[in-house]
């Protein structure tokens, strides 16, 4: 068995302020812009928003489930837009080529869907993984 060229889309959420606070505690990033609406407003934002590393962390789990955790050699993210309370994340990925070291290269993406159905890309990611059979235990 080899990895599917396209990963099955996964939805996570809706995310709440509690998810942001849980991540702040787990990750140790207590920038008040992620949990204090007054501070967020004073910086010109409509409300608090999620840590980029929360979205990146959620996407990394998706990448591991798809490409195989032990196969992952690199993972990168570029933040495009914020994730707001109430948003649902839509995770997707596609194998786009091979690196010069023979690793599979995947492009990953996170979109947000707001409660009123507005959809936008919030994060773009890349991953490289050993391209051999991804879940060898499933070959039996």
């Amino acid at each position: 068995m080899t990895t599917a060229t396209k990963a099955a889309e996964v939805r996570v959420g809706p995310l709440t302020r509690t998810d942001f606070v849980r991540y702040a505690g787990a990750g140790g990033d207590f920038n008040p812009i992620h949990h204090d609406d007054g501070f967020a407003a004073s910086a010109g934002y409509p409300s608090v928003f999620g840590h980029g590393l929360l979205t990146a962390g959620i996407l990394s789990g998706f990448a591991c489930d798809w490409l195989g955790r032990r196969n992952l050699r690199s993972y990168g993210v570029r933040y495009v837009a914020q994730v707001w309370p109430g948003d649902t994340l839509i995770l997707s990925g596609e194998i786009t080529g091979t690196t010069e070291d023979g690793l599979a290269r995947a492009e990953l993406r996170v979109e947000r869907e707001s409660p009123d159905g507005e959809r936008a890309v919030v994060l773009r990611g890349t991953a490289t993984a050993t391209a051999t059979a991804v879940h060898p235990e499933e070959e039996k």
Partner: protein
Amino acid sequence: MADFGKIGFEWPPYTIEVERGKIAEFALAVRASDPVYTDRAAARAAGYADVPVPPTFSAVGQHWAPKTSVEDDLGVDLKRVLAGGADWEYLGDIVAGDVLTVRGRVVDMVEKRGGRGPMTLIIRENTFVNQRGETVLRLRGTMIELGAAS
């Protein structure tokens, strides 16, 4: 305002003790349901010496790093700072019980003009070395400070 004199700035090295409870807490926070993060038997069956860390676990270093702030160290204003992105390079396993030494430095600061006006990109690199002297992780992060540099 970011201080360009800080290119090459190195933070004092610090150590992280990789704890099982923190791994489970972090995995829950990022919705990673793979049992390898909580179940030692599942981790061993997958080939790890103990429960491994999720791919972005390096973020917990903030709990262990010396209590200085980027505001003070680099002269940036948190209200104008956004995370730009990050790149992790996985060079070896990191599992519960490991003790990692983290060395961080400012690799570069670049002025740019984007859709939101002038901005400064601050690029940091952290290297994680385990108790056996093996470099197991390299992390590059980009922080964006909006507004013109002084």
